[in-house]
């Protein structure tokens, strides 16, 4: 298996707080990897650094053999790495279909957007029903479907999912992760940030546990659950929690 995404010694944060102390991880082609950890451990910050929404202080990120930090944030999606951000971030006053079209704004995906749109609609039939509706008027679960669909519209080779289950009903989580499993089987690599470890385990083969901006454990899902690394990453740590 070839490595698609490789992160080494990533340090990042905001103006006066360092959130990521030292993050190293890798995702192979076609693999689903989970990034697990408690609130404030640095999961979302990692995602933001990968997509360029924040500029890291140090470390290296390579994607498909290219130095990602040398690529402007808005050009990264053209390389095939797409983020479905935390809190969905759909465009609320824009229709569902137009939100999806915006997902295929980049050169890479614009020519085939009609076919991609059809495949997103067959993955999430609900979106096809709601295509004329303003995105902000849909339920949280539907908005999450839209956010995932919008990221898929760029025809990524790697999908970054930041807490897709946040605030959703168990039923909706089930539907959504069913779709995520389908995406994974189509060959798209996925890096999945989740607090809902159970849902993450249903689709991921490997995982990293992070705490206080460092990777504290890594391995297959079975290894992680057996070693108890996850429990300590979610519940342990007497140190004050870094702000994210």
């Amino acid at each position, binding site marked *: 298996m070839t490595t698609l995404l490789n992160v080494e010694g990533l340090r990042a944060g905001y103006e006066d707080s360092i959130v990521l102390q030292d993050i190293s991880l890798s995702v192979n082609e076609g693999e689903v990897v989970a990034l697990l950890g408690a609130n404030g451990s640095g999961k979302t910050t990692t995602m933001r650094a990968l997509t360029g929404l924040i500029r890291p202080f140090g470390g290296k990120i390579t994607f498909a053999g290219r130095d990602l930090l040398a690529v402007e944030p808005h050009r990264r999606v053209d390389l095939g790495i797409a983020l479905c951000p935390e809190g969905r971030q759909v*465009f609320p006053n824009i229709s569902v279909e137009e939100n999806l079209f915006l997902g295929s*704004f980049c050169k890479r995906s614009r020519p085939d957007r009609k076919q991609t749109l059809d495949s997103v609609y067959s993955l999430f039939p609900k979106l096809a029903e709601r295509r004329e509706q303003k995105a902000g008027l849909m339920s949280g679960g539907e908005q999450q479907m839209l956010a995932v669909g919008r990221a898929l519209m760029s025809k990524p080779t790697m999908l970054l999912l930041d807490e897709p289950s946040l605030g959703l009903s168990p039923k909706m989580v089930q539907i959504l992760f069913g779709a995520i499993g389908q995406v994974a089987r189509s060959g798209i690599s996925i890096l999945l940030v989740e607090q809902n470890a159970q849902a993450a385990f249903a689709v991921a083969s490997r995982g990293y546990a992070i705490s206080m901006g460092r990777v504290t454990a890594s391995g297959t899902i079975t290894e992680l659950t057996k070693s108890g690394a996850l429990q300590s990453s979610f519940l342990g740590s007497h140190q004050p929690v870094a702000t994210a």
Partner: protein
Amino acid sequence: MSLFWQCIVDSLLLGGLYSLMSIGLSLGFGVTRIINFAHGEMIMFGAYGAYFASVLLGVDPLLSLPLVSIVVAVTAAVLFKALIEKVLNAPHINQILLLFGLSLALQNVAAILWTGDARSVATPYSLTAYEFDLLLVPHGRIIAFIVAAILIVALFCWLRFSELGRATRAVAENGQAATLMGINVSRMYMLSFGINAALGAATGAISSFLLTITPFMGFHMLVKAFAIVVLGGLGSVAGTIIGAFALAFAETWVSYYVPEGNGWAEGVAFIVLLFVLIIRPKGILGQAVAVH
């Protein structure tokens, strides 16, 4: 009764001009979250552009309008890149001071270059009018209204149906999410600033045969545009048009029905501004804007 209908017609025609005058200001705020206090100067330069095209080259303002708008748009985009881009994330007071300063500087550049003399463009349609019984409808005002309507519809279609228009709306709603879509947000800011300046310049070009052109005409129009945009709701295109017609009606009504109304009409914008800010600060169709 004819006074009543005259008042209606005048209000409608003025409303078209006011819509075009303020739509760039409103859209600019919606996209960049910066109020362009130099918007009036874009109008002023548009008016001077049309004036010189007419006086020096004998070109009708309606024909010079496209070129004048493009020149002003490009100049504005350069100003944006050189100055305004640097304060995008600065405190509001810095943004206001920069743009207000820019406005004053541009006014005085115009005064130095072209003196403070009042000018106007004479066109074949400046002084003619349709007459229906006692109703008088000046040709110039009709033409201005039609040009404004065409440009507003064109802007609306561009925003609604084009790839870049859609990207502009996305940037206005959520810049970070737009970046994730592969949209170059700072490029879109520059584009929208240029387009808004072009709309201002077009307003100037059609004002050139209706109003008096001076280096300081922009500030006067900015205040009105500001009242309209606040009344309609900052960032809302539909709200801006409602606001523009509301102000046009209010001003025309005051000037026709209040004794000495012509003078008072100019103050209506301030009264509107005052009452909107007290009663409904987010405007008629405005969305609440987060305060940082």
